[in-house]
């Protein structure tokens, strides 16, 4: 009889093992082998990990990845929240706004990349043309700065609506009484935002930050289509690096090790951010 609960869990366990556990174990296995096409695999121990951590290309990609995710978060979260605050609370405007916001979210990643690729093409693209009017030059395949801010703008365009939707749902859930009380307590609009809106949005903001953090850490298709990771390695992020290692370089063992390091970084980072956000504004903030 005691075994019965396990029996009920079996389908779920089976699914999880097929979808996550077995692949992960396989990757762990690969990560300790030297796997080159046409040769016998042999055990390499931690050699792959050491080699990757010492690879300047990996370090560069990691650094860029952190910078990119950081920029994404500090732009998309405040911008998304601000837009959500501007959205109508009821009436026909709600539906229209939601549809407009939904459009970027409905487009597949690589298509977003292709759209922006067309925008930025030096022969027919609209962006270089606009820059030319102002006497400036713009070329994503030539200038690091242009490539960077274009990838960033693309991500903001693509994913800020998600933050808006999450924040909007959170705002709708705040009972009207909180705002009534703030009015009676003579709170200024800023203080109402600071002490009513923000604390009540804490939960959804944590979700938005974590989603955007993890997602931006995995960015792959858009810069790949737009710049191919260039110019040079200017927009090569962790995922681009990993796939290049495993598929482009035919080094499956190295690729597996990179994936594991990558996986570990994402988990650790999400955990740290979650803990920080959970403790943010708890019982503190009597500084009015």
């Amino acid at each position, binding site marked *: 009889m005691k075994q019965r609960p396990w029996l009920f869990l079996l389908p779920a366990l089976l699914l999880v093992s097929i979808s996550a556990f077995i692949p992960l174990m396989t990757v762990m296995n690969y990560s300790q082998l030297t796997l080159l096409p046409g040769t016998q695999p042999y055990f390499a121990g931690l050699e792959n990990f050491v080699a990757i951590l010492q690879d300047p290309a990996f370090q560069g990609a990691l650094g860029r990845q952190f910078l990119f995710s950081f920029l994404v978060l500090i732009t998309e979260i405040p911008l998304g929240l601000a837009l959500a605050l501007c959205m109508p609370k009821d009436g026909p405007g709600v539906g229209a706004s939601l549809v407009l916001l939904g459009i970027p979210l409905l487009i597949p990643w690589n298509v977003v990349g292709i759209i922006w690729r067309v925008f930025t093409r030096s022969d027919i693209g609209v962006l270089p043309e606009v820059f030319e009017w102002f006497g400036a030059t713009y070329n994503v395949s030539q200038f690091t700065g242009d490539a960077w801010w274009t990838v960033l703008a693309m991500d903001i365009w693509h994913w800020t609506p998600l933050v808006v939707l999450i924040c909007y749902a959170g705002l709708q859930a705040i009972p009207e009484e909180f705002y*009534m009380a703030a*009015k*009676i*307590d003579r709170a200024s609009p800023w203080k109402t935002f600071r*002490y009513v809106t923000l*604390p009540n949005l804490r939960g959804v903001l944590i979700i938005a930050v974590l989603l955007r953090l993890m997602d931006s850490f995995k960015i792959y298709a858009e810069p790949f289509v737009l710049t191919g990771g260039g110019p040079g390695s200017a927009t090569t992020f962790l995922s681009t690096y990993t796939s290049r290692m495993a598929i482009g370089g035919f080094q499956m063992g190295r690729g597996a090790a990179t994936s594991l390091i990558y996986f570990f970084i994402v988990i650790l980072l999400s955990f740290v951010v979650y803990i920080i956000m959970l403790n943010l504004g*708890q019982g503190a*903030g*009597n500084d009015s």
Partner: protein
Amino acid sequence: MAEIEVRDIRHVYDQGSPDETVAIERINLTLKDGTANALLGPSGCGKTTLLQIISGLLQPTEGQILIDGEDVTGKPPAERDIAQVFQFPVIYRSMDVYGNLAFPLRNGGVPEAEVESRVHRISELLELDDILRSSPSNLGPELNQLVALGRGIIRADTSAILFDEPMTDVEPSRKLTIRRRVKEAQQEFGITALYVTHDQHEALTFAEQVAIMKDGNLVQYDTGENLYQSPVNTFIGHFIGSPGMNLLECGLSHENGHAHAHLGPHQVPLDSALAPSLDPSWTDCQVGIRPSSVTVQVADPHEDTGYLPATVDQVEMLGGFQIITATLRQTDVEVKARVAHDFAIDEDASVWLSFPPSDIRFFHDHEAVPA
């Protein structure tokens, strides 16, 4: 401290649209300075709407709100010096209890030294001293509601405080304590208070005067005793008291200065003081009698003593007393009577009921006929 006058207030939601709803027909009400008042009525009668109009959260369609004679109708809540405690505790979660209490003062630019002394005064009164540094998220709804109350009364210029069913989230066993502290605070500061509830027990224990609303109208504004003893109409008679007043459809006869109410074949003598106000041509008449005023006898009184024969339908034991529901013989008139807990009676038994004339209230067209 202030006198609040509600003058000709009318409120219609979504005026002009197909969803138009009249929440308040027309209300006039004056709350005297420093008094504890309650606003009682069934759900959806417009209580909360009236409250929000007084606090300024809602602009009335018509009419005025005067505080100490000054018209404040167009003013926002912040300029009215009125505090409000909501149905569920509204607290600022990112601040501790101290920060919550200090919030309205700091918003008003009160110097920090005074903030501290006011916070301590209020926390002492509401017995919140020990939890000043706690985060409200860790406290129960009762304490949070007290914090919300404290925030309302902490401003030195608070002239009135409005409560919108503040006990909804409070556990029944804690209600008494919370209500006692609310009442103490009200008396300590002599604040004009208006307490909205649909629980008559809460209303009657809190308030000196209770306003009863129905369908957007103010029906009666009076002391608890008067509401109980002299309801202005059958609605109040039935609404106040548990169970409410017996309201029996009756006929009326009027001879030689003696008036009688007719319940089928039975005659009930009415108070002689009432007789001059009665008109025998009336048709839609009701006699009202409180269940506690009905005298019940199990033995047949035999002679004509004014006792009416009835059959017991139901006996409900309510702890300290019992409620008997009986039907008068040869009629379908049901009467509820309150008897002692040890009164021996069974269902289907015969009883004789008597209505003392001085305890009878007479209604014509559901409006009370004054004695």
